[in-house]
């Protein structure tokens, strides 16, 4: 019982990562009609926003401490972060400790700007081009972004730990007499994702914005004929998707240390999620994200892997195949979106 609940939590946790990335992807993919292979890179950049912030907060001045030696036997240079000298050691340390949540504020404007520049500078010229061209150009962009990050941050993962108060485990099942200890940050992540997902839904559902963008995707020309500046809305949409991807990245940092290829690792999977959910359907993407997350969690259990060896490696693809063969447009796909 405990094990099952734990795996469900794990599934929700994985699922919220998938859902969040797929959500941003499908906003661009299902509404703007652009196959954005650089979406993973946006997720990665989000994570590196938080790496950068923590580097900035850790910017230090050096003092030489002759009592200690470095690895070559020279006197050790001791580093003190500026924040600690400005705000006093305690406040400074707290600020540094909370760098990941702070990075959310830091990342939003950055991601919006990146999204804006990307859409205005590149993507907008590709709305009418074949999907194949979009793939090539955004893949090229993804490589470029990824290589730039590698150039500055190296190839190894860099830890961005959660604040002390939010790391550690929470005992969930206490009242029920169950043994369920679950990392607090992962619970935060699930909550944050749900918040973001509902936020995005509300924005698109309860404003006409969503309708306009969907209409613009289906027939740009006609929407403009109705006096609507569709370009501007596409840009906003793209910025929004970039920001969602970026925030997903920031929050993911404490779960797994960010590295330059984390975007590519997620890319293919998130495409599968979007398509299994059904092209053009936001609820579909979210549903598929959680579904695949939970299935993957259960396929990784010893019971599953001993019953069917290797099931944990293929489960997602297997489910994708079954879903697409039984439901032609994925779980909740719309007719006519990207079928040709």
């Amino acid at each position, binding site marked *: 019982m405990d094990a099952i609940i734990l795996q469900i939590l794990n599934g929700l946790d994985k699922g919220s990562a998938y859902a969040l990335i797929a959500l941003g992807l499908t906003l661009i993919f299902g509404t703007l009609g652009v196959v954005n292979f650089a979406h993973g890179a946006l997720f990665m950049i989000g994570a590196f926003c938080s790496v950068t912030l923590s580097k900035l907060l850790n910017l230090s001045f050096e003092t030489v401490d002759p009592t200690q030696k470095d690895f070559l036997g020279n006197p050790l240079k001791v580093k003190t972060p500026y924040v600690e000298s400005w705000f006093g050691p305690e406040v400074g340390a707290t600020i540094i400790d909370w760098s990941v949540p702070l990075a959310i504020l830091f990342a939003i404007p950055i991601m919006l700007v990146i999204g804006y520049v990307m859409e205005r500078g590149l993507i907008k010229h590709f709305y009418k081009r074949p999907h194949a061209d979009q793939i090539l150009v955004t*893949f*090229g*962009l993804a490589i470029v972004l*990824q290589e730039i990050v590698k150039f500055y941050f190296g190839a190894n993962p860099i830890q961005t730990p959660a604040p002390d108060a939010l790391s550690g485990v929470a005992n969930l099942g206490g009242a029920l007499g169950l043994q369920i200890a679950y990392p607090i940050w992962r619970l935060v992540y699930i909550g944050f994702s749900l918040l973001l997902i509902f936020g995005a839904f509300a924005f698109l559902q309860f404003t006409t914005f969503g309708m306009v963008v969907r209409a613009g995707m289906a027939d740009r020309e006609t929407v403009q004929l109705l006096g609507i500046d569709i370009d501007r809305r596409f840009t906003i949409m793209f910025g929004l998707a970039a920001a969602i991807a970026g925030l997903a990245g920031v929050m993911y940092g404490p779960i797994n240390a960010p590295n330059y290829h984390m975007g590519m690792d997620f890319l*293919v999977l998130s*495409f599968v999620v979007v398509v299994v959910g059904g092209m053009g359907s936001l609820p579909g993407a979210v549903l598929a994200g959680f579904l695949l997350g939970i299935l993957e969690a259960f396929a990784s259990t010893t019971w599953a892997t001993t019953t069917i060896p*290797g099931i944990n490696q293929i489960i997602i693809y*297997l489910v994708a*195949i079954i879903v697409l063969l039984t439901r032609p447009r994925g779980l909740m796909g719309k007719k006519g979106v990207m079928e040709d």
Partner: protein
Amino acid sequence: MLGLKKHDLSLLIIVAILTMAAPFLLNPFPTESGMAQFNAGYPDLMQKFVIFGIFAIGFNILFGLTGYLSFGHAAFLGVGSYACVWMFKLLGYNVLPGILLSIVVSGLFALLIGVITLRRSGIYFSILTLAFAQMSFALAYSVLSNPKFNLTNGETGLQVYADDPQWFHSDRLPDLPHLFGLSMRATHRMELGAWEFQFNVGYYMCAVIMLLCFYLAIRIFRSPFGLMLRAVKSNQQRMNYTGLNSRPYTLAAFVISGMYAGLAGGLLSAVDPLAGAERMQWTASGEVVLMTILGGAGTLIGPVLGAGLIKYFENIFSKINESVLHGWFGFLPDGLEDFVITLVYPFVGKGWHLTLGVIFMLVVIFLPGGLVEGGQRIGRLFRGKKPSGAAKSATTEPAE
């Protein structure tokens, strides 16, 4: 001649001349010069050019003509490679049975996957093919390489061991892949002054096969079958209401392109007898997509050019290290030298991916039809034709 129109025949002849003379053309710089770094005329790379050319030509028969974007074609390449190495292990190092088997096996595999995946179109088809290929990869990488049932030898890759049966192997034959005794590795080196040229058996075998494949592709493009494939891309609804069943056409195209991929995989094993699982990974499938689009999807020669460009970058640019750069820019004053090198360094050597990414972007942005369009534009400039005239004639010529 050969059942080709003049235009296509001259294209074929040009390609034939280029591939046959490749050892010369690809080694334009004297061995000792600083530019020798850019020479690509060594056996391994030349083999890769033509083998990936075959892969991309085959992929283009599916994607360029029908518009079905398969994201799992590497699976067929991988299956072909494994089939060929298994022939080495069982029968011996003659490449012929291996290559034939790789075509047959990949064709069957493509038939199986095609029947299932072609029930969907568009992005749904792409993801289905991707899913099958990723499953094949996972199986090859770990599940099918467990000690009890080792079909693929996992991460290391399938290779020939001394204790393999090799029923038809004899001591007179080379202990490496060969064609009736002619070793794939055999290379004749010719020194001409400061230049050196290498003529390799494996390369020439692959080149001849590539020409055959290219010829076949031209015939397919110009055939009624090719027309039907383009009809699939253009309007399946109209096709069905014109009494044509689009499914067998797409399936045939899928199988043919799967066989091309399998052949390419077989040849990879033939020139280098080790079949690794990464060949089936999505990145490998993505690579052939990129090659085809980069060169010009739906054109005859484009995919070959795209394959060449990507392989060139992967193999030549990745080798330019700092000391090579110092060699080149050594003539500059010290400060300037360092400056230039810091500027160039991120783009070469380990930064070759960066350059490749930039090239992808530049090509798609400025040459929507891929490298082939670039060629056409240069050609137009050359002939000094006015754009309007060219546009008109472009619509009247059958699509390349």
